[in-house]
Structures are given as structure tokens and as C-alpha cells.
């Protein structure tokens, strides 16, 4: 008897093992998303859009229809799909560069229009696939290839607080949360509630995922965990930032909030 790895049903077996680096948070974030798709039984209705950067490695990750684009344009692509066919459940998956820098206008305006789509954004505090440059989310003092002496907030500002911004500008019936790959059950619940918000046709849903990038952080397992669990939460508070009244409280999620 062979032991099958516990994989969400919506994952595509033929493309596993996936191509992310060892210790990368994307695999965990996509596990949470896969579990959420399974739990809601929407595999035949989901359209998954991914961006450029490491998120593009997910272009054939799921057994769902998928489209890969770049520069945060995943948001308008899935907006275009959703408005043309509202029956579909449209997910845009991207990194912090796509969502908060080069494609920030798309995130801002999709949130402002309260598009009935779900945006999931992995925050690993830098541009990973291009080789570890500074991102809007880079922590003060953090060294990257384009902030070799550490990010100086005087010169380049403070880490972008995406979910806080989205919560401030989106509709009252939007769902906004920040989870972390260190708390998979909470993250899975957030994904379920985000997708549920779209399924119910209530409004925009947005989940930022605090994620890891040991390859560019140049960290071992212990330091990676410490960066994720100690340094990032000092700037990025996890939990639900905006919950439509109709969605009710999430007890599991509440317990996990820092």
C-alpha cells in the first residue's frame, strides 16, 4: 500500500510536486485555497488567475480553469471574466509587487467598485522571482538587492498596509482579512469566508497572506519562522479587518488573531 500525500482534491496531481522553493509560503497558501475550494464544492465554477513573479508557478497548479498574466493585471482579467459571466467564482492570486506597486491601481479600483471577486495576495516583503528587490512591504531596515543598506523609511516610506487600505475603501459588504502561512486552519477559514462572500454576491473579498521566502531572505528554517512569526507581525497584524454582517463571526478565526 502506498501512502498518498494529503492533497486537496482540487489540486492537480500531474503537476505535483510543485515548483516552489523549499520553505516557500506559496504552497501553504495554495493548500488553504485548495481546501477552501474543496470545502465549498466549487471546483467546477472557479477560475484561478495568477500573476507574474512566483505566483505564476501556480498557472497549472489546480484542476480548475486558470489564466496567468502579469503586473497585477490579474485583477482586471478576473474582473472582466466575472462581469462577463457572473456564475463563475473568480480568484486573482498575486504577490505584493503586483498588488501594491505595479498593479496597485487595479486593486484599489476593484476594491472601490466592490467587484464580486476574490483577491489573494502573498506578502513576503520583497520581489522574489526577480531576485530579491525591495517591495512596498519590505520591513524597515530589511536588506534587499535594491536596499542594500536596509530599507530607510525616511527615504522610501514604511511597509504598505494593504488590507487596512482595502478595508478603508471597499464596500460595507466586503470581506478583508490578513492571515499567515503559520496558521493554516485560520488561513483556510479566511479563504472559505472570502470565497463565500463572492458566492453570496455580497462584495469584494481580499486576503493578504503573510508568506515566507527563505531563498531570498537567506534564512534557515528557524530564522525563516522567526521572521514570519516575530518580525512581520510587528508591522502586519493578522485577523479579519472587515466582515459583512451577513457573514457572522468566525470563532475559529477569532481565536487565532494575534
Amino acid at each position: 500500500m502506498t501512502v498518498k500525500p494529503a492533497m486537496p482534491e482540487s489540486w492537480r496531481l500531474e503537476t505535483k510536486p510543485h515548483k516552489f522553493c523549499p520553505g516557500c509560503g506559496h504552497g501553504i497558501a495554495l493548500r488553504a485555497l485548495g481546501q477552501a475550494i474543496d470545502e465549498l464544492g466549487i471546483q467546477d465554477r472557479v477560475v484561478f488567475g495568477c500573476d507574474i513573479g512566483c505566483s505564476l508557478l501556480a498557472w497549472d497548479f489546480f484542476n480548475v480553469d486558470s489564466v496567468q498574466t502579469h503586473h497585477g493585471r490579474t485583477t482586471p482579467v478576473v474582473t472582466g471574466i466575472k462581469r462577463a459571466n457572473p456564475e463563475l467564482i473568480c480568484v486573482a492570486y498575486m504577490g505584493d509587487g503586483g498588488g501594491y506597486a505595479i498593479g496597485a491601481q487595479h486593486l484599489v479600483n476593484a476594491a472601490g467598485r466592490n467587484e464580486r471577486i476574490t483577491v489573494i495576495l502573498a506578502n513576503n516583503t520583497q520581489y522574489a522571482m526577480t531576485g530579491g528587490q525591495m517591495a512596498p512591504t519590505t520591513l524597515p531596515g530589511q536588506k534587499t538587492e535594491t536596499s542594500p543598506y536596509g530599507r530607510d523609511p525616511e527615504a522610501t516610506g514604511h511597509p504598505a498596509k494593504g488590507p487596512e487600505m482595502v478595508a478603508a475603501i471597499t464596500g460595507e459588504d466586503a470581506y478583508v482579512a490578513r492571515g499567515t502561512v503559520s496558521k493554516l486552519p485560520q488561513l483556510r477559514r479566511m479563504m472559505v469566508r472570502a470565497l463565500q462572500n463572492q458566492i453570496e454576491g455580497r462584495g469584494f473579498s481580499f486576503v493578504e497572506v503573510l508568506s515566507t521566502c527563505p531563498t531570498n531572505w537567506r534564512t534557515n528554517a528557524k530564522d525563516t519562522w522567526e521572521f514570519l512569526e516575530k518580525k512581520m507581525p510587528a508591522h502586519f497584524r493578522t485577523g479579519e479587518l472587515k466582515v459583512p454582517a451577513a457573514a457572522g463571526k468566525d470563532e475559529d478565526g477569532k481565536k487565532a488573531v494575534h
Partner: protein
Amino acid sequence: MSGAVMAEKRVFMTGNEVVAWAAVAARADVMYGYPITPQNEVMHYWTRLAPKHGKIFLQTEDELSAGFATIGGVLAGKKCFTATAGPGNVLMQEPVSMAEMMRLPVVVVVMQRGGPSTATVIYSQQEVTLTTFGGNGEGFRVVYSTAGLQELYDHTIKAFNTAWRYRFPVFVLADGYQAKMREPLTVYDPVERGIEPVAPEPYVGRPGKPGADRPPGHYRNTYNTEEELYAVVLEQAAEYERVAPEIVEHEESGAEGAAVLVVAHGVVARAAKQAVELLRAEGLKAGYFRPVTLRPLPAEALRTAAGRAGRLLVVESAYGQFARLVRDALYGLTVDVVPLYKPGLGITAEEIASRCRELAASSARTE
């Protein structure tokens, strides 16, 4: 009239409106757009018609978003289009490059304005290079350059069919004059004329559970290796070249034995045609050649016409963008190509005629 395409009728319209009505006639479902002069009334009229015809519209945050949302609409299986101009066309090249890579049938209407940059909001033919070969690719797209409101109606309808039949992005290239000018034209339901609209089909969201009932649709614009991309681009090139003869269109008159062959496209071709009629009435052997498709260019027909002519006068409201396409097609022929470039300015039949007279006189002297 609610919901139905307008019955055949002579009407009085402006160019931008014509595009909106033609899109309805072509059974387009969705427009995503962003305001920029001089194309705004395309959106103004689409939004006025949309609720009566069950159409979808969204004003996006910019042209990038309009273009990428158009890609989304196409992926969802809808006939989807956008319209833009000038700096908006610059931004539009990013989504169109993706549509080229994925062979997606997006339709983009361009109303050229002055350039470079913001320049003027009124008129030019300075978006020829951008529209034919913009983006970081090979220009595998179709570009129809119209010369008046009837053609704008006919070719907007045709653009959707060409896009969905061949799965290359299609541009309808007009300009601020055509956008704003008013003239009578005949509107019609293409179905009544035997032009069957090519049915769109979804790329995503087809029936069944992906991985169980059917393979998932996985679409990407990124490739890992040079060899992989090379194979993709070569396949696209072969397909583009295969279908090009079915797509090319041109118009010519009096090219055979013309002392001067006037070559022009778009609204300038109207003036060129008039000039040639004027000159022929005067007894001057003038001819006229007008590519309707700038991509693919009717190169064979152009070479044939040019080979029989004494000289070519290339006329455009730009500084040689169209002439570059022409010269490229004529490579190897010895025919003399004389420019008449007026970037961002309208060109009258009289100007063209008088330049032709000068040319005829100078060649008479040399003979």
C-alpha cells in the same frame, strides 16, 4: 427597436456612434473602456444602448485595465471590445501583447489623435506603427484602416468575425476626424445580408468538473525556455502567414500605367481618391492604391501596382510611419517613392493633386 439590431436604414451619425451601433449589430456582448478623447462617444453610445440590448459595460481605472478586462471577457466566451486613442493606445499595447501571445480574439477600436505623448486631442495618423507593431512581440494582429463612416460600420462588424475566426487580436484603426465627423450611412443587420456572426466560445467555465469530466483550461503568457517560446512564436507566425491572404484587403484604381500612383490609407485615402479623379479628368495618368488592412499588408497587390507605376506618392498625416510599411513591402523594386507627410494635419485632395502635378511635370522634364 428594443433588443434588436437596427433594420436596414439610411441614417446620419458620427463615427464614434457608428462603432457602438456596429458592435451591437456584430452581437458584441461587452465593452470595457476608459475615457480618452476623441473616442469617448463610443462609450457614451454603448452605455446608452446597453440596457436596451442586454449588453455589459464597465468603465475601468485605465486602459491597462480596460484591455485586460477585455481579455477576461473574451476568456469568459463573450464578444468583448474596447476603444482608445493616443496615450491610451500606448497602454493598450500591454494587454494586446498578451492577447497575441494567447491568440485571444479581442477587438480594439483606435481613434488616432496627435502625438507624441498627449499632443492634440483631434487628429493624426501617427498611431500606425504602434497599432501595427506595438507591444513586445511580432505584430501578429489584424489592423483595418477605415476611410469613412460606412466602412467604420462595415469593418467594426467584420473585426469581430475576423477576431473569432482567426483568433488574432483585431484593431479597427480610425482617427479623430472619423470619430467626430458626421455623414450619412446605411446601417443594417449583418445577418440579413448573409454575414453570419462567428459564434464565440468560452475558454474558461466550460461545463463539467476540470480534471474529472474534462481537462482544465490552463492559459499562460510565460514560457520557461527559449526553445519553448521559439516553437510557440514560429507556430503563430506560420498561422498568421497562412491566414493573411484570406484577410488582406485593398482598394485601387487606375494603377495600371499610372505616371503617379498615390498610396494612402484611412481618411487620407478619401482625399487621395478625389485627387486622382481630379487629375484623371485633367488627363494626367494618376492612380490610387489604398491598403484597407495595414496588418497584414496587401503586399503582393501593392508590389504589382507599384511595378506598373512611374512613381509612388505616399501621403499620410504622420512622418513616414505608413511609408515604412509601404517601402518594406516594395523591397527590391526600383520604383521611386516620394513622400507627402503632414504629421497631425489633415490633407486635402487639392494638396495631393498639386503635388502630383509637380511630380508629373518634373518627370516630363527628365524624360
